[in-house]
């Protein structure tokens, strides 16, 4: 039954997987970061190795030394120093670290694709001599033996270092609690750096060992490495020996499967199982193991916000900034209608990709779950709609094209519901990996199967007997996007939106007041899958062909990273993101958009809140400069901060003296800086009062500005008056045009300017004693 030769063959792959697993575990245990970039780093190192050995003709040993002993650890050190140390410094959540590692993945993939192209290379020289040794009649490859030796050396070295040396004790202290360890004068950064260097070195080994066996291509290789995550999941993110054992076992099992022949209907499925056991194992293990031993707050729901780490649920000021954002998105969407036909065709992807990004906004931005399987749902939507249009879907009648797209997307809902049900019970990393595994399994067992995905014809669309031309199709796409935005808006507003936000903020508290957390998450997940399906169907219709590579699992990671970069809780961010991705892809060489997103994702280390918040910051800065123009320069003294009422319950109300919107702004600043420096934080509040006063007023901008100015004994300049006039008109117009949710709509009542309360009119004393009020 068990063939020794097959086992030995499987051992080769299993050993590489185990090696990758060791690297992942060491990085995770020392840094608390599950390095999703492992695959990208492996690909990059393999490409560099091949470049030196093949293109430059360097000796193989020299190439190997440079790639594995210099480049790989250097990558780790750089990543630690410039990406993950800043994150650890500001105690970023596990979700943020996850996104940062995705950023590294996307960046490395973009580099590979940009430099070496997306095509596959099969001339990577093997690291170890291509010889085999005979052991009692069986041949075992030198590379397999070497890899096994490497594993043993790694394990022994790690064991000795961890248990016998001072560094090992420091390592365990850092793993336990980085901040606490630092307080006990443990050089945590050094420990983290060593962990990273070790992890990336093993990633490099994985890449160089895998490259000759597979064809070297950026996405292909990194996907294989990502599949080795099965190994660390089996080890529950903790146990090194189990990881090694699981790697070897899955490798051997996968190899043993080839000796059986399965005929009939499932022959194709079985054949894919032979080459995809790792990904199946990943999914099965994730479903079977209810809780991984995640470090730190990894179990908590991720918080992604385009408005800085502590979410400001929409002050009036923020809202006016969003208008700029919305206007930009709207113009970007309409512009292609004026393009030349060829360019219009390129723009077909924009609404489709925007819908796919939007689907993740629903799950990640609003309910705080990380979902890395969106390509699977998008692909299913595409597949279903095409099957429906061709009339061979589960015996359903052939549907006209447009209806097929809609029905196809809706048919994704049951899939989303079924896959979402186990997924929503998981959180943090586990959820992220589960959704990724779902996407990967769907890709390998559905999209890659000729049985399902061949013979799909994309027919021209008809509406009322008329064949739609390109412009009409683009408008249809915009209508689809509008539907998606409507779905997002309904999720973002009203009781459902509030309940989702409540779940994201504090799911225990939400359950305590009767919010059905599970069902809510499931609703969000299902809606998200439908929106993704719609996007996928439109994507395929626009491209006029179904290709499994469009929906490969890595694509989910790219899209997810893009979504976070452009503001995870911003529907307009999704549109702008999609526009930029498509534009870069059309204008620049392939891989450029990937590269750009990777760079932007890494900047998250320095810009909490992502690009969207950086743009917002810029807009705020400009608005403040502009605001300075509103009043005569000599009368510019900024309103002084009213002293907050100190002591007791009076302190319960933070700075009641400033207007409501400014108070929230200030409090948001306070919470961002921590409680350590409330006074310093609130000292910055007046600047916000300054801007938000005039801008906040909307239609009655001028009167409000005049009122505020008068209160402070200032007068409006004619320039300020004119500017406010145009701003006010344009602002309200745009708000009606685009039904995208604004920040303020999270909490409509919160963003309402305190009615009938002129700025600064709340007497501090009146609100200082609300508990006494309770007795009345």
């Amino acid at each position, binding site marked *: 039954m068990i063939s020794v030769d097959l086992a030995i063959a499987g051992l080769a792959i299993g050993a590489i997987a185990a090696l990758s697993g060791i690297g992942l575990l060491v990085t995770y245990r020392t840094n608390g970061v599950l390095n999703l970039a492992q695959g990208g780093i492996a690909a990059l190192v393999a490409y560099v190795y091949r470049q030196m050995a093949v293109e430059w003709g360097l000796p193989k040993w020299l190439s190997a030394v440079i790639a594995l002993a210099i480049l790989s650890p250097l990558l780790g050190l750089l990543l630690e120093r410039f990406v993950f140390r800043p994150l650890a410094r500001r105690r970023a959540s596990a979700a943020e670290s996850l996104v940062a590692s995705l950023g590294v993945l996307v960046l490395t993939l973009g580099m590979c694709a940009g430099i070496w192209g997306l095509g596959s290379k099969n001339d990577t020289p093997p690291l170890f001599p291509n010889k085999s040794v005979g052991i009692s009649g069986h041949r075992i490859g030198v590379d397999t033996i070497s890899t096994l030796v490497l594993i043993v050396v790694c394990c022994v070295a790690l064991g000795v270092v961890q248990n016998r040396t001072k560094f090992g004790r420091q390592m365990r202290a850092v793993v336990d609690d980085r901040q606490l360890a630092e307080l006990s004068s443990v050089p945590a950064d050094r420990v983290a750096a060593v962990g990273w260097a070790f992890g990336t070195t093993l990633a490099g080994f994985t890449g160089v060992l895998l490259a000759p066996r597979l064809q070297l291509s950026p996405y292909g290789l990194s996907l294989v490495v990502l599949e080795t995550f099965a190994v660390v999941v089996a080890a529950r993110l903790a146990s090194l020996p189990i990881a090694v054992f699981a790697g070897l076992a899955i490798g051997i099992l996968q190899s043993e499967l080839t000796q059986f022949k399965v005929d009939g209907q499932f022959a194709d499925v079985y054949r894919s199982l032979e080459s995809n056991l790792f990904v199946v194992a990943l999914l099965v293990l994730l479903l079977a193991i209810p809780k991984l031993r995640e470090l730190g707050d990894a179990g908590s729901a991720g918080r992604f916000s385009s408005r800085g780490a502590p979410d400001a649920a929409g002050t009036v000021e923020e809202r006016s900034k969003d208008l700029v954002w919305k206007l930009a998105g709207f113009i970007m969407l309409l512009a292609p209608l004026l393009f030349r036909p060829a360019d219009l065709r390129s723009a077909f992807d924009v609404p489709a990709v925007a819908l796919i990004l939007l689907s993740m906004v629903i799950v990640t931005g609003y309910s705080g779950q990380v979902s890395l399987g969106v390509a699977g749902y998008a692909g299913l939507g595409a597949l279903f709609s095409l099957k429906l249009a061709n009339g061979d879907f589960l015996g359903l009648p052939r549907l006209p094209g447009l209806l097929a797209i809609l029905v196809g997307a809706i048919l994704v809902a049951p899939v989303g519901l079924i896959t979402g049900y186990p997924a929503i019970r998981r959180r943090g990393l586990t959820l992220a990996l589960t959704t990724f595994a779902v996407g990967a399994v769907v890709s390998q067992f559905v999209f890659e199967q000729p049985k399902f995905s061949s013979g799909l014809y994309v027919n021209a669309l008809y509406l009322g007997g008329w064949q739609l031309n390109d412009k009409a199709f683009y408008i249809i796409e915009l209508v689809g996007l509008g539907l998606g935005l409507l779905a997002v808006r309904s999720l973002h507003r009203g009781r459902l939106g509030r309940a989702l936000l409540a779940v994201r903020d504090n799911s225990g508290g939400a359950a305590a007041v*009767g919010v059905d957390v599970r069902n809510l998450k499931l609703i969000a997940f299902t809606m998200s899958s439908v929106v993704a399906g719609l996007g996928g169907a439109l994507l395929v219709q626009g491209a006029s062909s179904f290709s499994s590579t469009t929906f490969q699992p890595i694509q989910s990671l790219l899209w997810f990273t893009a979504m976070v970069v452009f503001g995870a809780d911003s529907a307009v961010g999704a549109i702008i993101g999609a526009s930029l991705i498509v534009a870069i892809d059309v204008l620049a060489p392939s891989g450029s958009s990937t590269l750009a997103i990777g760079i932007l994702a890494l900047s998250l280390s320095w810009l909490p809140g992502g690009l969207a918040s950086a743009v917002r910051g810029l807009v705020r800065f400009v608005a403040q400069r502009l605001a300075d123009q509103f009043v005569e320069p000599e009368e510019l003294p900024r309103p002084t901060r009213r002293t907050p009422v100190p002591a007791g319950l009076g302190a*319960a109300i933070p700075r009641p003296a400033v207007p409501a919107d400014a108070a929230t702004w200030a409090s948001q600043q306070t919470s961002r800086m921590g409680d350590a420096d409330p006074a310093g934080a609130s000292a910055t509040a007046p600047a916000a009062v300054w801007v938000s006063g005039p801008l906040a007023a909307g239609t009655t901008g001028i009167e409000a500005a005049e009122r505020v100015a008068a209160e402070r004994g200032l007068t409006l300049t004619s320039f300020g008056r004119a500017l406010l006039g145009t701003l006010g008109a344009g602002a309200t117009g745009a708000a009606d045009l685009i039904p995208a949710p604004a920040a303020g709509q999270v909490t409509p009542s919160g963003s309402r300017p305190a009615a009938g309360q002129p700025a600064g009119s709340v007497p501090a004393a009146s609100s200082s004693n609300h508990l006494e009020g309770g007795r009345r």
Partner: protein
Amino acid sequence: MSRAELRAVGLVRRYGGLTAVDHVDMSAPPGLITGLIGPNGAGKSTVFSLLTGVEQPDEGAVMLGDRDITKLRPDKRSRLGLVQTFQVPSLFTSMTVRDNLLVGVENRRRDYAGGLFGRGIRGNARHDEVVDEMLASLGLTDVANVITGSLPTGALRLAECARALCTHPDVLLLDEPASGLDAAETERFSQLLRRIAANGVAIVLVDHDVDLVFTVCDQVYAMVGGRVVAHGSPAAVRADPTVQSVYLAQGTKA
């Protein structure tokens, strides 16, 4: 509408070999404040978790009125009228106080279908009224539009309590509501509790602060080692010799 009584019948909870809760019976009648005291490790927090549904008992049942709610999740219990607050106030930190309260009002009944479409839900105006009244009666009107993430503990306790009250509960379970409050705040808070109970709500209070429990409660259960060792009026429990020796003599109460 008659308010329901919360009863625990023979609750048992074991962790491995340790029996944290050993056949505990208790009842919290409407309109009364029921206190639960005990030294560290006595099992009062476990009892609390069993009542709220965070944990499941190994034996016994939790009854709300005539209904057995032992197997129900916390959110379901909450919709039936059994609402809890937390040791660490757990408000929705990115939302305003008002919106926090709205979540409380809106989720008492299970009808998300209407909410899916955002607007036009019947009774929305009434929700706002309920919230406004609650804000006014607890003196939170001034902070109604403040994001809760920035409020200090005293106001958070109050806001959390207001949110719980917005669900129109039959039973209110409070986990150490006085922790983090100073003496004056505690005093005001206990007056608030009296007011709530006077409206016919059953309140269950778990707290380390023996003074608070003995002054505010109508009846007290004292736990030691997972069992209820004394039950009755505050004066009776205070006089109980077991309670005296095990709890009060430890210096918690001078």
